[in-house]
Protein backbone atom coordinates (compact mmCIF):
# COMPACT_ATOMS: atom_id res chain seq x y z
CA UNK A 1 0.00 0.00 0.00
CA UNK A 2 1.54 3.29 -1.01
CA UNK A 3 1.08 6.51 0.85
CA UNK A 4 -0.39 8.59 -2.01
CA UNK A 5 -3.08 5.99 -2.67
CA UNK A 6 -4.22 6.03 0.96
CA UNK A 7 -4.12 9.78 1.18
CA UNK A 8 -6.25 10.27 -1.87
CA UNK A 9 -8.63 7.58 -0.61
CA UNK A 10 -9.74 10.05 2.02
CA UNK A 11 -11.15 12.54 -0.45
CA UNK A 12 -12.32 12.67 -4.05
CA UNK A 13 -10.21 14.12 -6.78
CA UNK A 14 -11.18 17.78 -6.54
CA UNK A 15 -13.29 19.15 -9.37
CA UNK A 16 -13.14 22.72 -10.64
CA UNK A 17 -15.48 23.98 -7.94
CA UNK A 18 -13.59 22.32 -5.10
CA UNK A 19 -10.31 23.42 -6.52
CA UNK A 20 -11.51 27.00 -6.39
CA UNK A 21 -12.64 26.46 -2.80
CA UNK A 22 -9.26 24.97 -1.89
CA UNK A 23 -7.54 27.94 -3.45
CA UNK A 24 -9.68 30.14 -1.23
CA UNK A 25 -8.65 28.09 1.82
CA UNK A 26 -5.03 28.32 0.78
CA UNK A 27 -5.29 32.08 0.35
CA UNK A 28 -7.01 32.46 3.71
CA UNK A 29 -4.44 30.23 5.38
CA UNK A 30 -1.57 32.15 3.85
CA UNK A 31 -3.19 35.43 4.88
CA UNK A 32 -3.54 34.22 8.48
CA UNK A 33 0.07 33.10 8.48
CA UNK A 34 1.22 36.41 7.02
CA UNK A 35 -0.75 38.35 9.62
CA UNK A 36 0.78 36.19 12.34
CA UNK A 37 4.24 36.67 10.90
CA UNK A 38 3.65 40.40 10.59
CA UNK A 39 2.50 40.55 14.18
CA UNK A 40 5.63 38.71 15.33
CA UNK A 41 7.85 41.02 13.30
CA UNK A 42 5.96 43.99 14.71
CA UNK A 43 6.50 42.66 18.23
CA UNK A 44 10.17 42.09 17.48
CA UNK A 45 10.61 45.63 16.17
CA UNK A 46 8.42 47.08 18.88
CA UNK A 47 10.51 45.50 21.62
CA UNK A 48 13.65 46.66 19.82
CA UNK A 49 15.02 43.24 18.92
CA UNK A 50 16.51 44.48 15.67
CA UNK A 51 18.38 47.31 17.34
CA UNK A 52 21.97 47.48 16.24
CA UNK A 53 23.21 47.15 19.81
CA UNK A 54 21.63 43.71 20.13
CA UNK A 55 23.19 42.42 16.93
CA UNK A 56 26.52 44.12 17.43
CA UNK A 57 28.11 41.25 19.38
CA UNK A 58 27.99 38.98 16.35
CA UNK A 59 30.45 41.29 14.59
CA UNK A 60 33.15 40.75 17.18
CA UNK A 61 35.78 38.15 16.59
CA UNK A 62 35.80 37.08 20.21
CA UNK A 63 32.07 36.40 20.17
CA UNK A 64 32.29 34.54 16.89
CA UNK A 65 35.06 32.43 18.32
CA UNK A 66 32.99 31.80 21.42
CA UNK A 67 30.14 30.52 19.26
CA UNK A 68 32.45 28.43 17.12
CA UNK A 69 34.06 26.96 20.21
CA UNK A 70 30.60 26.15 21.50
CA UNK A 71 29.77 24.44 18.24
CA UNK A 72 33.04 22.53 18.44
CA UNK A 73 32.12 21.50 21.99
CA UNK A 74 28.75 20.21 20.80
CA UNK A 75 30.32 18.28 17.95
CA UNK A 76 33.03 16.89 20.21
CA UNK A 77 30.47 15.64 22.73
CA UNK A 78 28.41 14.22 19.88
CA UNK A 79 31.39 12.43 18.35
CA UNK A 80 32.43 10.88 21.64
CA UNK A 81 28.87 9.93 22.57
CA UNK A 82 28.23 8.45 19.13
CA UNK A 83 31.40 6.36 19.18
CA UNK A 84 30.75 5.30 22.77
CA UNK A 85 27.13 4.35 22.23
CA UNK A 86 27.88 2.41 19.06
CA UNK A 87 30.53 0.42 20.95
CA UNK A 88 28.34 -0.07 24.02
CA UNK A 89 25.39 -0.96 21.81
CA UNK A 90 27.48 -3.62 20.08
CA UNK A 91 28.62 -5.11 23.38
CA UNK A 92 25.13 -5.11 24.91
CA UNK A 93 23.59 -6.56 21.76
CA UNK A 94 26.20 -9.31 21.78
CA UNK A 95 25.26 -9.93 25.42
CA UNK A 96 21.55 -10.11 24.65
CA UNK A 97 22.14 -12.49 21.76
CA UNK A 98 24.55 -14.64 23.75
CA UNK A 99 23.94 -18.33 24.31
CA UNK A 100 24.92 -18.06 27.97
CA UNK A 101 21.89 -17.33 30.10
CA UNK A 102 23.56 -15.25 32.87
CA UNK A 103 25.17 -13.01 30.27
CA UNK A 104 21.83 -12.56 28.54
CA UNK A 105 20.13 -11.67 31.82
CA UNK A 106 22.73 -9.10 32.77
CA UNK A 107 22.60 -7.47 29.35
CA UNK A 108 18.80 -7.43 29.40
CA UNK A 109 18.75 -5.86 32.84
CA UNK A 110 21.22 -3.15 31.85
CA UNK A 111 19.43 -2.37 28.60
CA UNK A 112 15.98 -2.23 30.17
CA UNK A 113 17.12 -0.10 33.10
CA UNK A 114 18.93 2.51 31.05
CA UNK A 115 16.16 2.70 28.51
CA UNK A 116 13.62 3.37 31.25
CA UNK A 117 15.58 6.20 32.91
CA UNK A 118 15.48 9.76 31.63
CA UNK A 119 18.87 10.63 30.13
CA UNK A 120 19.01 13.72 32.26
CA UNK A 121 18.77 11.72 35.49
CA UNK A 122 21.82 9.71 34.43
CA UNK A 123 23.74 12.81 33.39
CA UNK A 124 22.93 14.54 36.68
CA UNK A 125 23.77 11.42 38.63
CA UNK A 126 27.20 11.20 37.07
CA UNK A 127 27.73 14.94 37.35
CA UNK A 128 26.45 15.54 40.88
CA UNK A 129 26.84 12.27 42.73
CA UNK A 130 30.06 11.06 41.18
CA UNK A 131 31.48 14.60 40.87
CA UNK A 132 32.73 14.22 37.32
CA UNK A 133 33.61 17.03 34.92
CA UNK A 134 30.74 18.17 32.66
CA UNK A 135 32.03 16.69 29.40
CA UNK A 136 32.62 13.14 30.69
CA UNK A 137 29.34 13.31 32.59
CA UNK A 138 27.43 14.30 29.47
CA UNK A 139 29.17 11.71 27.32
CA UNK A 140 28.64 8.96 29.90
CA UNK A 141 24.92 9.70 30.22
CA UNK A 142 24.39 9.87 26.48
CA UNK A 143 26.48 6.74 25.90
CA UNK A 144 24.59 4.67 28.48
CA UNK A 145 21.21 5.71 27.15
CA UNK A 146 21.85 5.64 23.42
CA UNK A 147 24.00 2.54 23.75
CA UNK A 148 21.07 0.70 25.33
CA UNK A 149 18.67 1.83 22.64
CA UNK A 150 21.16 0.95 19.90
CA UNK A 151 21.64 -2.49 21.46
CA UNK A 152 17.97 -3.15 20.81
CA UNK A 153 18.29 -1.81 17.28
CA UNK A 154 21.26 -4.07 16.59
CA UNK A 155 19.46 -7.03 18.08
CA UNK A 156 16.38 -6.38 15.99
CA UNK A 157 18.62 -6.07 12.93
CA UNK A 158 20.37 -9.37 13.53
CA UNK A 159 17.07 -11.09 14.25
CA UNK A 160 15.56 -9.70 11.07
CA UNK A 161 18.08 -11.55 8.92
CA UNK A 162 16.38 -14.47 7.31
CA UNK A 163 16.84 -17.74 9.17
CA UNK A 164 18.20 -19.53 6.13
CA UNK A 165 21.28 -17.31 6.21
CA UNK A 166 22.21 -18.51 9.66
CA UNK A 167 21.44 -22.12 8.85
CA UNK A 168 23.42 -22.00 5.64
CA UNK A 169 26.39 -20.46 7.46
CA UNK A 170 26.27 -23.16 10.16
CA UNK A 171 25.96 -25.90 7.58
CA UNK A 172 29.12 -24.59 5.93
CA UNK A 173 30.86 -25.37 9.20
CA UNK A 174 31.35 -21.81 10.45
CA UNK A 175 31.58 -21.34 14.20
CA UNK A 176 29.05 -19.17 16.00
CA UNK A 177 31.33 -16.13 16.18
CA UNK A 178 32.06 -16.48 12.48
CA UNK A 179 28.38 -16.84 11.68
CA UNK A 180 27.66 -13.71 13.68
CA UNK A 181 30.53 -11.60 12.44
CA UNK A 182 30.66 -12.48 8.78
CA UNK A 183 27.04 -13.34 7.99
CA UNK A 184 24.47 -11.95 10.40
CA UNK A 185 25.96 -8.66 11.60
CA UNK A 186 26.78 -7.21 8.16
CA UNK A 187 23.27 -7.87 6.92
CA UNK A 188 21.61 -6.79 10.14
CA UNK A 189 23.53 -3.53 10.37
CA UNK A 190 22.78 -2.83 6.78
CA UNK A 191 19.08 -3.29 7.38
CA UNK A 192 19.16 -1.13 10.48
CA UNK A 193 21.42 1.62 9.20
CA UNK A 194 18.60 4.20 8.91
CA UNK A 195 17.41 3.43 12.44
CA UNK A 196 20.99 3.68 13.73
CA UNK A 197 21.52 7.08 12.12
CA UNK A 198 18.15 8.26 13.47
CA UNK A 199 19.28 7.31 16.94
CA UNK A 200 22.44 9.35 16.37
CA UNK A 201 20.19 12.31 15.58
CA UNK A 202 18.71 11.82 19.05
CA UNK A 203 22.23 11.80 20.51
CA UNK A 204 23.06 14.99 18.64
CA UNK A 205 19.92 16.69 19.93
CA UNK A 206 20.59 15.50 23.46
CA UNK A 207 24.08 17.00 23.54
CA UNK A 208 22.21 20.24 24.24
CA UNK A 209 21.46 18.78 27.69
CA UNK A 210 25.09 19.62 28.41
CA UNK A 211 23.85 23.19 28.74
CA UNK A 212 22.10 22.19 31.96
CA UNK A 213 25.30 20.93 33.56
CA UNK A 214 27.33 23.94 32.36
CA UNK A 215 29.25 22.09 29.68
CA UNK A 216 30.64 24.66 27.23
CA UNK A 217 28.58 23.72 24.21
CA UNK A 218 26.68 25.70 21.61
CA UNK A 219 23.65 26.64 23.69
CA UNK A 220 25.90 27.56 26.59
CA UNK A 221 27.85 29.98 24.38
CA UNK A 222 24.54 31.46 23.29
CA UNK A 223 23.44 31.89 26.87
CA UNK A 224 26.69 33.69 27.69
CA UNK A 225 26.11 36.19 24.89
CA UNK A 226 22.41 36.53 25.70
CA UNK A 227 23.03 37.45 29.30
CA UNK A 228 25.47 40.23 28.42
CA UNK A 229 24.17 43.58 29.65
CA UNK A 230 26.56 45.55 27.42
CA UNK A 231 24.62 44.44 24.37
CA UNK A 232 21.22 44.95 26.00
CA UNK A 233 20.56 41.27 26.72
CA UNK A 234 20.38 40.15 23.06
CA UNK A 235 18.33 37.06 23.84
CA UNK A 236 16.10 36.93 20.79
CA UNK A 237 18.94 37.60 18.32
CA UNK A 238 20.88 34.76 19.90
CA UNK A 239 17.95 32.38 19.52
CA UNK A 240 17.51 33.53 15.93
CA UNK A 241 21.15 32.77 15.18
CA UNK A 242 21.49 29.55 17.14
CA UNK A 243 18.32 27.65 16.33
CA UNK A 244 18.74 27.54 12.53
CA UNK A 245 22.23 26.12 12.97
CA UNK A 246 21.09 23.54 15.52
CA UNK A 247 17.99 22.53 13.60
CA UNK A 248 19.96 22.52 10.36
CA UNK A 249 22.54 20.09 11.75
CA UNK A 250 19.84 17.72 12.98
CA UNK A 251 17.89 17.98 9.73
CA UNK A 252 21.03 17.19 7.74
CA UNK A 253 21.55 14.02 9.74
CA UNK A 254 17.84 13.05 9.54
CA UNK A 255 17.92 13.66 5.83
CA UNK A 256 20.97 11.43 5.57
CA UNK A 257 19.09 8.68 7.42
CA UNK A 258 16.20 9.03 4.97
CA UNK A 259 18.56 8.97 2.02
CA UNK A 260 20.18 5.78 3.28
CA UNK A 261 16.75 4.24 3.83
CA UNK A 262 15.68 5.11 0.31
CA UNK A 263 18.90 3.81 -1.18
CA UNK A 264 18.51 0.62 0.82
CA UNK A 265 15.05 0.03 -0.54
CA UNK A 266 16.43 0.33 -4.04
CA UNK A 267 19.33 -2.02 -3.49
CA UNK A 268 19.04 -5.45 -5.03
CA UNK A 269 20.96 -7.13 -2.25
CA UNK A 270 18.62 -6.06 0.52
CA UNK A 271 15.55 -6.68 -1.55
CA UNK A 272 16.52 -10.28 -1.84
CA UNK A 273 16.88 -10.56 1.91
CA UNK A 274 13.53 -8.84 2.53
CA UNK A 275 14.58 -7.02 5.69
CA UNK A 276 12.31 -5.66 8.36
CA UNK A 277 11.13 -2.16 7.62
CA UNK A 278 13.45 0.18 9.45
CA UNK A 279 11.71 3.32 10.53
CA UNK A 280 13.63 6.12 8.84
CA UNK A 281 11.88 8.81 10.85
CA UNK A 282 13.89 10.15 13.77
CA UNK A 283 12.58 8.68 16.99
CA UNK A 284 11.79 10.96 19.85
CA UNK A 285 14.55 11.25 22.43
CA UNK A 286 13.49 9.01 25.24
CA UNK A 287 11.41 6.89 22.95
CA UNK A 288 12.71 3.40 23.43
CA UNK A 289 10.97 1.43 20.76
CA UNK A 290 13.76 -0.75 19.44
Amino acid at each position, binding site marked *: *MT*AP*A*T*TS*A*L*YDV*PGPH*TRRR*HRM*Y*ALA*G*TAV*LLVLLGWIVY*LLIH*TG*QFAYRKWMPFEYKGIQELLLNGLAGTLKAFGMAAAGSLALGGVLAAGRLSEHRPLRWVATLVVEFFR*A*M*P*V*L*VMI*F*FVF*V*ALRVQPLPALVTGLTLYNGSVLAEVFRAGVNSVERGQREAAYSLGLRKTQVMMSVLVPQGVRAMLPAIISQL*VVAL*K*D*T*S*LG*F*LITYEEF*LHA*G*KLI*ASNLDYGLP*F*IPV*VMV*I*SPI*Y*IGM*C*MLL*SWFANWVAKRERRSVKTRQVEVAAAEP*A*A*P*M*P*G*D*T*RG
Partner: protein
Amino acid sequence: MLTQNFSLYGRGFLGTVQLTVYASLLALALGILMAAFRVAPVASLRAFGTVWVTVLRNTPLTLLFFAVMLGLPRFGLVLPFTVFAVIALGCYTSAFICEAVRAGINTVPVGQGEAARSLGMTFDQTLSAVVLPQAFRTVIPPIGSTLIALAKNSAIAGSFSVTELLGTYKPLNEQGYNIIWTFVWIAVGYLIITLAISAIFSLLERRWGVPR
Protein backbone atom coordinates in the same frame (compact mmCIF):
# COMPACT_ATOMS: atom_id res chain seq x y z
CA MET B 1 15.52 9.67 54.22
CA LEU B 2 12.43 9.24 52.09
CA THR B 3 10.09 9.49 55.08
CA GLN B 4 11.67 12.70 56.36
CA ASN B 5 11.36 14.47 53.05
CA PHE B 6 8.20 12.90 51.83
CA SER B 7 6.41 16.21 51.25
CA LEU B 8 9.26 17.60 49.13
CA TYR B 9 9.59 14.38 47.22
CA GLY B 10 5.82 14.07 46.85
CA ARG B 11 5.57 17.61 45.52
CA GLY B 12 8.23 16.84 42.93
CA PHE B 13 6.50 13.61 41.98
CA LEU B 14 3.13 15.32 41.60
CA GLY B 15 4.81 18.08 39.61
CA THR B 16 6.12 15.55 37.12
CA VAL B 17 2.75 13.79 36.94
CA GLN B 18 0.96 17.09 36.38
CA LEU B 19 3.42 18.18 33.72
CA THR B 20 3.11 14.82 31.99
CA VAL B 21 -0.70 14.78 32.01
CA TYR B 22 -1.22 18.32 30.76
CA ALA B 23 1.54 18.11 28.16
CA SER B 24 0.15 14.75 26.98
CA LEU B 25 -3.31 16.22 26.47
CA LEU B 26 -1.89 19.18 24.55
CA ALA B 27 0.36 16.89 22.50
CA LEU B 28 -2.50 14.51 21.66
CA ALA B 29 -4.82 17.32 20.59
CA LEU B 30 -2.18 19.12 18.52
CA GLY B 31 -0.74 15.89 17.14
CA ILE B 32 -4.09 14.60 15.88
CA LEU B 33 -4.87 18.02 14.39
CA MET B 34 -1.50 18.07 12.62
CA ALA B 35 -2.00 14.53 11.36
CA ALA B 36 -5.36 15.62 9.93
CA PHE B 37 -3.59 18.57 8.30
CA ARG B 38 -0.99 16.30 6.78
CA VAL B 39 -3.58 14.15 4.99
CA ALA B 40 -5.93 17.03 4.15
CA PRO B 41 -6.90 17.79 0.56
CA VAL B 42 -5.80 21.43 0.91
CA ALA B 43 -2.14 21.72 -0.09
CA SER B 44 -1.33 24.64 2.20
CA LEU B 45 -2.54 22.76 5.26
CA ARG B 46 -0.42 19.79 4.24
CA ALA B 47 2.60 22.03 3.87
CA PHE B 48 1.96 23.60 7.26
CA GLY B 49 1.74 20.19 8.92
CA THR B 50 4.92 19.01 7.24
CA VAL B 51 6.87 22.09 8.28
CA TRP B 52 5.58 21.82 11.84
CA VAL B 53 6.66 18.20 12.13
CA THR B 54 10.01 18.56 10.38
CA VAL B 55 11.10 21.59 12.37
CA LEU B 56 9.96 20.36 15.77
CA ARG B 57 11.35 16.89 15.28
CA ASN B 58 14.78 18.30 14.56
CA THR B 59 14.81 20.82 17.40
CA PRO B 60 16.68 19.89 20.56
CA LEU B 61 14.16 20.03 23.39
CA THR B 62 16.57 22.01 25.52
CA LEU B 63 16.75 24.68 22.84
CA LEU B 64 12.95 24.80 22.69
CA PHE B 65 12.74 25.16 26.46
CA PHE B 66 15.44 27.81 26.34
CA ALA B 67 13.55 29.78 23.68
CA VAL B 68 10.11 29.43 25.24
CA MET B 69 11.02 29.89 28.89
CA LEU B 70 13.44 32.77 28.47
CA GLY B 71 12.29 34.17 25.12
CA LEU B 72 8.53 34.63 25.39
CA PRO B 73 8.72 36.80 28.53
CA ARG B 74 10.71 39.28 26.41
CA PHE B 75 7.51 39.94 24.47
CA GLY B 76 5.67 40.74 27.66
CA LEU B 77 4.06 37.30 27.72
CA VAL B 78 4.46 36.34 31.34
CA LEU B 79 2.94 33.05 32.44
CA PRO B 80 3.84 30.62 35.21
CA PHE B 81 6.88 28.50 34.34
CA THR B 82 4.77 25.37 34.50
CA VAL B 83 2.52 26.65 31.69
CA PHE B 84 5.53 27.43 29.55
CA ALA B 85 6.91 23.97 30.23
CA VAL B 86 3.60 22.37 29.23
CA ILE B 87 3.53 24.40 26.01
CA ALA B 88 7.11 23.49 25.09
CA LEU B 89 6.72 19.80 25.94
CA GLY B 90 3.28 19.56 24.33
CA CYS B 91 4.29 21.20 21.05
CA TYR B 92 7.47 19.16 20.86
CA THR B 93 5.72 15.85 21.50
CA SER B 94 2.84 16.70 19.14
CA ALA B 95 5.23 16.30 16.19
CA PHE B 96 5.92 12.69 17.22
CA ILE B 97 2.26 11.97 17.97
CA CYS B 98 1.39 13.36 14.53
CA GLU B 99 3.77 10.95 12.83
CA ALA B 100 2.43 8.02 14.86
CA VAL B 101 -1.18 8.91 13.97
CA ARG B 102 -0.31 9.42 10.33
CA ALA B 103 1.36 6.02 10.22
CA GLY B 104 -1.83 4.64 11.79
CA ILE B 105 -4.00 6.31 9.17
CA ASN B 106 -1.88 4.67 6.50
CA THR B 107 -2.54 1.23 7.96
CA VAL B 108 -6.32 1.58 7.56
CA PRO B 109 -7.31 -0.31 4.42
CA VAL B 110 -7.94 1.93 1.42
CA GLY B 111 -11.37 0.35 0.97
CA GLN B 112 -12.60 1.97 4.18
CA GLY B 113 -11.93 5.47 2.93
CA GLU B 114 -13.30 4.63 -0.48
CA ALA B 115 -16.46 3.16 0.99
CA ALA B 116 -17.00 6.22 3.18
CA ARG B 117 -16.52 8.48 0.19
CA SER B 118 -18.90 6.47 -1.94
CA LEU B 119 -21.52 7.04 0.76
CA GLY B 120 -21.05 10.73 0.08
CA MET B 121 -19.12 11.58 3.22
CA THR B 122 -16.92 14.64 3.19
CA PHE B 123 -13.24 14.56 4.07
CA ASP B 124 -13.93 15.59 7.69
CA GLN B 125 -16.56 12.91 8.09
CA THR B 126 -14.43 10.25 6.42
CA LEU B 127 -11.49 11.05 8.64
CA SER B 128 -13.24 11.50 11.95
CA ALA B 129 -16.00 8.90 11.69
CA VAL B 130 -14.36 6.13 9.67
CA VAL B 131 -10.59 6.31 9.40
CA LEU B 132 -9.41 7.78 12.71
CA PRO B 133 -11.38 5.37 14.95
CA GLN B 134 -9.80 2.48 13.10
CA ALA B 135 -6.37 4.10 13.11
CA PHE B 136 -6.71 4.61 16.86
CA ARG B 137 -6.62 0.87 17.40
CA THR B 138 -3.24 0.44 15.74
CA VAL B 139 -1.57 3.54 17.15
CA ILE B 140 -2.08 2.70 20.85
CA PRO B 141 1.39 1.16 21.36
CA PRO B 142 3.41 3.86 19.55
CA ILE B 143 1.50 6.64 21.30
CA GLY B 144 2.14 4.90 24.60
CA SER B 145 5.88 4.87 24.03
CA THR B 146 5.80 8.49 22.86
CA LEU B 147 4.04 9.53 26.06
CA ILE B 148 6.55 7.57 28.14
CA ALA B 149 9.25 9.52 26.34
CA LEU B 150 7.35 12.71 27.20
CA ALA B 151 7.34 11.78 30.88
CA LYS B 152 11.08 11.22 30.74
CA ASN B 153 11.69 14.44 28.84
CA SER B 154 9.79 16.40 31.47
CA ALA B 155 12.93 16.07 33.60
CA ILE B 156 14.42 18.90 31.54
CA ALA B 157 11.79 21.29 32.89
CA GLY B 158 13.30 20.93 36.36
CA SER B 159 16.34 22.86 35.25
CA PHE B 160 14.12 25.76 34.18
CA SER B 161 12.70 26.34 37.67
CA VAL B 162 9.64 24.11 37.38
CA THR B 163 8.83 21.90 40.35
CA GLU B 164 9.32 18.33 39.26
CA LEU B 165 10.93 15.11 40.36
CA LEU B 166 14.53 15.46 39.20
CA GLY B 167 14.71 18.98 40.64
CA THR B 168 14.23 17.61 44.17
CA TYR B 169 17.84 16.42 44.25
CA LYS B 170 19.03 19.99 44.77
CA PRO B 171 17.43 20.83 48.15
CA LEU B 172 18.09 17.29 49.37
CA ASN B 173 21.73 17.58 48.37
CA GLU B 174 22.04 20.90 50.16
CA GLN B 175 20.58 19.39 53.31
CA GLY B 176 23.41 16.91 53.23
CA TYR B 177 21.51 13.74 52.49
CA ASN B 178 23.23 10.87 50.78
CA ILE B 179 23.23 11.83 47.13
CA ILE B 180 23.26 8.25 45.86
CA TRP B 181 20.07 7.40 47.72
CA THR B 182 18.46 10.62 46.54
CA PHE B 183 19.01 9.53 42.96
CA VAL B 184 17.82 6.01 43.70
CA TRP B 185 14.49 7.40 44.93
CA ILE B 186 14.24 9.74 41.95
CA ALA B 187 14.85 6.77 39.67
CA VAL B 188 12.13 4.83 41.47
CA GLY B 189 9.76 7.75 40.98
CA TYR B 190 10.37 7.82 37.25
CA LEU B 191 10.02 4.05 37.03
CA ILE B 192 6.62 4.31 38.76
CA ILE B 193 5.43 6.92 36.29
CA THR B 194 6.69 5.17 33.16
CA LEU B 195 5.39 1.79 34.33
CA ALA B 196 2.01 3.35 35.09
CA ILE B 197 1.79 4.81 31.59
CA SER B 198 2.77 1.53 29.99
CA ALA B 199 0.22 -0.30 32.18
CA ILE B 200 -2.53 2.11 31.10
CA PHE B 201 -1.63 1.66 27.47
CA SER B 202 -1.42 -2.11 27.65
CA LEU B 203 -4.90 -2.00 29.18
CA LEU B 204 -6.11 0.16 26.30
CA GLU B 205 -4.35 -2.18 23.91
CA ARG B 206 -6.11 -5.20 25.38
CA ARG B 207 -9.46 -3.45 25.31
CA TRP B 208 -9.32 -1.86 21.86
CA GLY B 209 -6.11 -2.94 20.21
CA VAL B 210 -6.00 -4.94 17.01
CA PRO B 211 -5.76 -8.59 18.02
CA ARG B 212 -2.57 -10.16 16.74
